[in-house]
Each structure stands twice: as C-alpha cells, then as structure tokens.
C-alpha cells in the first residue's frame, strides 16, 4: 500500500494503537506486532514475493549464526559466501538477467550472430534492492567481526522487514537499528508529534511537489521532439524536483512513521540541492546508499589509500555500481559514470572534504559565491538526471540535443504558474530549515499555536487539493 493512500491512513493508526495500548510494555509482543504488520504491508504490494522476503531473512539469520559458530575460517567463509551469492543471485535474476541477455544478444548481432536468449517474464519484487542490502550489511558486519549475530529470529526479522523502510529504504545498519529493536521503547509525546510533522512534510513533498513536477517532466520526456529547448531545460529541472520530492518525501514519511513507534531511522537526505560541490551533493543525497557503498565496497577496495589512481578507480567503480543498483539500463550506468566524472576533480585535487558544514550556517542568506556554486552543482546533477530519467541512451542524447537547439531561447511551453509558485515556496521553506533534520522540524515553533496549526492546515489543504495526480514513488522500481 502506498504511504499516500487511504489504506495506509487506516493501517497506521491501527498498528500504532495496538502497539502502544495492547502490546504496551511487552517488547516481544511489540516486535511480533511490527513483524506481522510489516509482512501484511508487504503482502499488500504482492503477496507472492513475501516468500522471497521471508527466505532472504531466514537465509541471513541462519548463515549469520553459522558464521559465528563456525569452528574454522574456511567454514566461516563458506557460510558468508553462501549468503552473499544467494542474495545477489536473487537480485541478479529478478533485476538484471533480462538486461544482460538482451545486451549480449544486441552485441552479438552487431558482429553478425543472431542469438535468441530466453528472457524472463518476471515482475521485479518491490523493495528487493533495499532489503537485500539490509541483509548483506548484516552478514558482512558479522563476517568482519563488527557485530554478533542476532539470535532472536523475530528481532532480526523486524530489522529486515520493518515496514516504514521495507520498500524504499533508508538502508539501515544492524549496528543502528537492531539495538533499538532489542530495547524497550518508551512513548515520548514530543517524538511522536515530531514524527507526525515529518510525515506531513513528506506528503507535501511527494504529492504537491513531486507529483505535479512529474506531470510536466513526463509530458516533455515522453514527447521530446515536440517541445522547445527551453521547455526541455525546465522539464529537466522539474524532474530534479520530482525525484527529490518523491524520494526524500518517502524517506520523511518513513522516518516520521518510525518515530511514532519509538524508533529512529537513519537520515537519508540532507538538502542535497543546497550543495556547493558534487562531493557535498553525494554526502547529502540517498545517504544510506552512498554510505553503504562507501563502507562495503569503496573501503574494501582500498578506499583512498594507494594514491590518486586507486582513488579514481575506486570512485568510478562505486558510481558505476551505484548506477547499476538503480536499474538494469545503460542510462543508469551513464548517470553513475557522469557523476563519477563530475566528482573526479575534487577527488584528484583532494577538495572532496570541503564544505562539510551546512551552507551559510547560522545566516539567512548565502554569499554570491555560494549561490553560484549551488546553482552550478544543481545544474550538473540535473544534467545527469536526464540520463536517469530517459528510457534509453538514444532518448537521453536526443533530449540533450533538443536543449542545445536554437529554440532554447524561446519561452518555455505549458508551464502552470501555480506549480512554479509552489516550488518557490518549497525551496524557501527548505532553505530556512536547512540546518534541521527536515525543513518543517522547527518551522513556526515560536508562533502561537493557532498560527502554527493554520500553517499545518494550509499544507494539509495543499496535499488534499493535489491528491489525484497520482504518480508511483520512483524508487519503488528499484
């Protein structure tokens, strides 16, 4: 069920009330309730793939224990590689088999061989990329001796399947989430209210910003030849807002929902479009995935040790794998490659650790230089998004070609002014809240309650006004 659906609006209060009133101070009961609700939540998407989720959970739980109990290093390695290969095997089959088969057939046909590989007609199980990576991080941490395996199957299952993060992250770590599952949760009113506020902001980002930007972006991306160059630029910007609103909105709803149950999830977005360089952008965008790749791929590959060549090589590998993680299409790989290219100068010249603090920290306005850097970084990331959004490489290049046509100087077509104003308002609120965990966290907190509630009602009003322009969460397809 979607977060922005009536089904979820009914599901959440029921689980919440059962959790705090029926399960009350019984930790075991609360965890069982979370597990059952999470499986129900997942089954609402597609009950057929519940088996896969349960199997993946069982596999990692069992291999984790076996690694701990292994009497020899080879045996420990065996269980480790069993888990890795089965998990990645499922991911590979469901997500990448057709891509490799079709790409290989296309390559062979260019040299005169006609190959007809059998392709799978399978649906991609929702959330597979996310819960697989949960399990992988758990298994790798046990293998590296960072954590001990969880012996309580219910607790471990909740870690893998906790419904707020099950279908689109954030990708949690056992070191962060498991202790919270193992400990008693205490209801704290301030946290619950904060959670509701974050859910409201997430819904605004998704329904008001993302879904409305999607309409315009889809119109142009799907009919590229019919619009002017300037319209293409606007569409690319709208897509940048769409994917941010969609994904960070989902993350806000996930984090806010988790807080209602006394659980804190990892932050996934930290105002990436206010970044002053690409390195900073990647410290602020889909944080849980980029840190996962850093810890489980970049550092084992050697990280930044071994000179510039090693850094460059490892950076390219990370971004190409990250692109590939998003989907089985050359466009995602091109997106990853572009981002690697953009970040390369800062890697080579060692400036990738600049700009660690929030832009214009403690100030209302940024400097002209900062604004220039923000706009340049935004432009670069938006350019890369063109590949991410396009259905294939030819469409991406065609889209870019349209931008660099003479019609780039004409007035953009079909823009709805109200959407532009909403985006401006959104950027202002995000800017004012950029030092908070989410923009609405402290917004209006020093206002009298009637004004604060009026502001929340305005956001709620906008959410309901724009409900109906339904667009799927983008990251559900990963």
């Amino acid at each position: 069920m979607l977060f922005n659906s009536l089904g979820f609006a009914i599901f959440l209060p029921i689980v919440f009330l059962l959790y705090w009133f029926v399960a009350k101070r019984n930790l075991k009961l609360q965890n069982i309730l979370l597990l059952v609700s999470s499986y129900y939540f997942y089954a609402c998407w597609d009950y057929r793939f519940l088996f896969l989720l349960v199997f993946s959970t069982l596999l990692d739980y069992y291999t984790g224990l076996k690694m701990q109990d292994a009497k020899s290093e080879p045996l420990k390695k065996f269980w480790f590689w069993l888990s890795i290969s089965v998990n990645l095997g499922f991911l590979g089959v469901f997500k990448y088999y057709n891509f490799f088969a079709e790409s290989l057939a296309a390559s062979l046909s260019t040299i005169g061989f006609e190959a007809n590989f059998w392709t799978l007609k399978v649906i991609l199980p929702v959330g597979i990329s996310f819960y697989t990576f949960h399990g992988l991080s758990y298994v790798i941490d046990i293998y590296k001796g960072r954590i001990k395996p969880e012996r309580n199957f219910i607790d471990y299952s909740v870690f893998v399947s906790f419904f707020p993060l099950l279908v689109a992250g954030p990708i949690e770590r056992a070191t962060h989430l498991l202790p919270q599952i193992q400990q008693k949760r205490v209801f704290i009113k301030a946290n619950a209210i904060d959670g509701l506020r974050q859910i409201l902001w997430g819904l605004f980002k998704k329904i008001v910003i993302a879904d409305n930007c999607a309409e315009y972006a889809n119109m142009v991306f799907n009919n590229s030849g019919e619009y002017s160059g300037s319209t293409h630029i606007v569409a690319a910007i709208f897509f940048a807002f769409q994917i941010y609103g969609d994904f960070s909105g989902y993350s806000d709803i996930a984090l806010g929902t988790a807080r209602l149950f006394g659980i804190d999830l990892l932050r996934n977005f930290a105002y990436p479009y206010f970044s002053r360089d690409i390195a900073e952008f990647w410290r602020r965008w889909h944080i849980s995935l980029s840190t996962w790749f850093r810890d489980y791929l970049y550092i084992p590959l050697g990280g930044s040790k071994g000179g510039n060549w090693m850094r460059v090589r490892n950076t390219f590998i990370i971004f190409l794998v990250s692109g590939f993680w998003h989907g089985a299409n050359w466009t995602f790989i091109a997106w990853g490659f572009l981002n690697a290219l953009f970040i390369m100068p800062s890697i080579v010249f060692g400036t990738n650790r600049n700009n660690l603090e929030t832009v214009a920290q403690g100030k209302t306005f940024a400097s002209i230089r900062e604004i220039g850097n923000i706009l340049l970084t935004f432009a670069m990331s938006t350019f890369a998004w063109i590949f991410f959004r396009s259905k294939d490489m030819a469409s991406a290049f065609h889209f870019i070609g349209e931008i660099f046509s003479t019609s780039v100087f004409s007035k953009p077509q079909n823009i709805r002014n109200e959407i532009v104003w909403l985006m401006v308002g959104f950027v202002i609120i995000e800017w004012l809240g950029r030092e908070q965990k989410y923009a609405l966290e402290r917004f209006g907190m020093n206002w009298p309650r009637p004004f604060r509630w009026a502001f929340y009602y305005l956001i709620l009003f906008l959410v309901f006004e724009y409900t109906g322009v339904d667009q799927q969460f983008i990251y559900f397809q990963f």
Partner: protein
Amino acid sequence: MKLFLRKTFLFLCIPMAVFIIGIFLPATPKAKQSLLMSKFTKDSLLLHTKKPRIIFIAGSSMSLGLYSQPFKDSLHLNPINTGIHGGLGAFYMMDDVIDYVQPGDILVMAPEYHQFYGDFAYGGEELLRAAFDTSSPRVIMNLRWEQFKKMYGFVPKYSMSKFMPEQYFHLTENDFYSKDAFNKYGDAVLHWDKKFEGKFEPFKMIDGGAFNHELITAFDAFNKTVKAKGATLYISFPPFEEQSYESCKSQIDYVEKELRSIPGITVIGTAERYAMPTDCAFDTPYHLNKKGVFRRTQLLLEDVEKQMKTDGLMK
C-alpha cells in the same frame, strides 16, 4: 499518550468537519454549469422518451462524437444520447441506464478504450461529483465497492471545493463543456462551429494498467440483463483519431478480441472502421469536430441498420 491522542484528534477535527460538511453542501454555482449536470436532462430523456428508442451509451466520445437525428430519420427510432464523461466509468454507465431500459429498446454501447485498462472503468472524480452534485441517492446506492475505492481519494478535494471562492465568483462560461451544450437528443453540438485553439495531442498508448477482465464480465452480465428486459444490445467502437489508433493498435485489437469473445454478444463494425482522420478530431482523440461527427454518425448508422436487418428488427 492520552494527551498526544487528544491533540491529534483535535487537530484532525477541523479537516474532518470540512470534509463532512463540504460533501453534503449543495453543488456550487460553477458545478451547476458543468456538463455533469446534463445527467438530469439525460435521465429525463430515458424516462420520458417514447418507444421505439435507440439509446447510445458511452462517455464524451458519444456526446461529442454523434449526431442522433439521422437515426430518427432513417431508422424511425427515438434516439437518446446518454454520453456525458468517460470519467464516470463504464460500470456506472451500464448501471445507470439499465433501470430505464424498456422492451424493444435498441442499446448501442461504444465504450472508450481507456475503460478497458486499469481501473478507469470504475470512474473517478467525475463520478463523485455526479453522485453528490446531482444529489442522486440512486447513483450512490448503485455504486460498487471498487467505485467507492476510486472515489474516496477525491472526497477531500471535492469537499474543500465547496469553500473555494472561485466556485462562486467570476465564473466564466466554457460553453462546449457545459450542461447547455446538448441538443434535444443529448448530443453535444455547441463545439461544432468552434475551432480548438490548443495543441492536439494524440495518444501514444492507452495507459492505466493491465486489461480489466472484470469489465468484460460486466458486459456479459449487462447483455443478459438487457435481453431479459426484451431489449437488444449492440457493442460498437468509439471514434479514435488515426495517429492514436496506430500507436495503440495492439491494445485496441485486444479490446476487440475480448469483446468478440463474449458469448451471445453482438459486436457491430470494427475498431479500425472508427479510426478517424486527424482533421476530424476536435480537442482529444475521442472528440470529433462537425465533419468527424457526421462521418462517425454515418458509419454507425450503417452498422446499426445492417445489424437490425439481420436481427429482423427493421420495420
């Protein structure tokens, strides 16, 4: 915890009150101008038009795609064009008409192709507006669960619209999409002499999701019910601009195949026959200008006449 629940409940009280009050407030002046309000007129036609009758059923492809007078002149049937808006959904169209069907009626249904994909056939915001703006208990009581599920998402927006100033002031007339756009048979005619000023966009595909086999089941049931009432149902095809037809051909072929597979149902004409040249289209691939309306009417008249002769229904 209790304080939290109390505060949350209090916070939600106001929007809930707005939704509940709003949904039961009468239709706004702007809503009263909407073409959905033509439902009153069309229901009246269904109730009062004398036999023998021919009833045309579809969405706006029927209202903005047909001229009924030739059916009266050639077939000596009193025509009723029930077409209003495709967003009411094919299930509603069938459920709404069936109570008015009389022995001897000829029903011609030409549902838009979008009805067959995803959940389009269950209606959406237009169905909600039709139900509550027309204050029609009949509409509400006849709704299926799937239709409620499609509608409830629009309840807050609909309720809130009752409090919006633009629903009451500075109303502009959009003549060819208003309740006054119809002639005495229910055909929308005010757009005939108008030129569409915007950009015509052909469909690239019929989006919405998987094929809805429940609609095929519903057509089967509808056909049986119509026959039980002593009436006759013919299934035809909507007018569809030719570029859109070419782009969506495989999906349309599947619709046609599924319709023809219904036992005992009479399908007249073919989908390809109703693919209209682009210069016959008005503002959407389903809507026709005057030239297109006359062309489609002629095609449908030929198909209906031929089938009526086969069925021995020509007098």
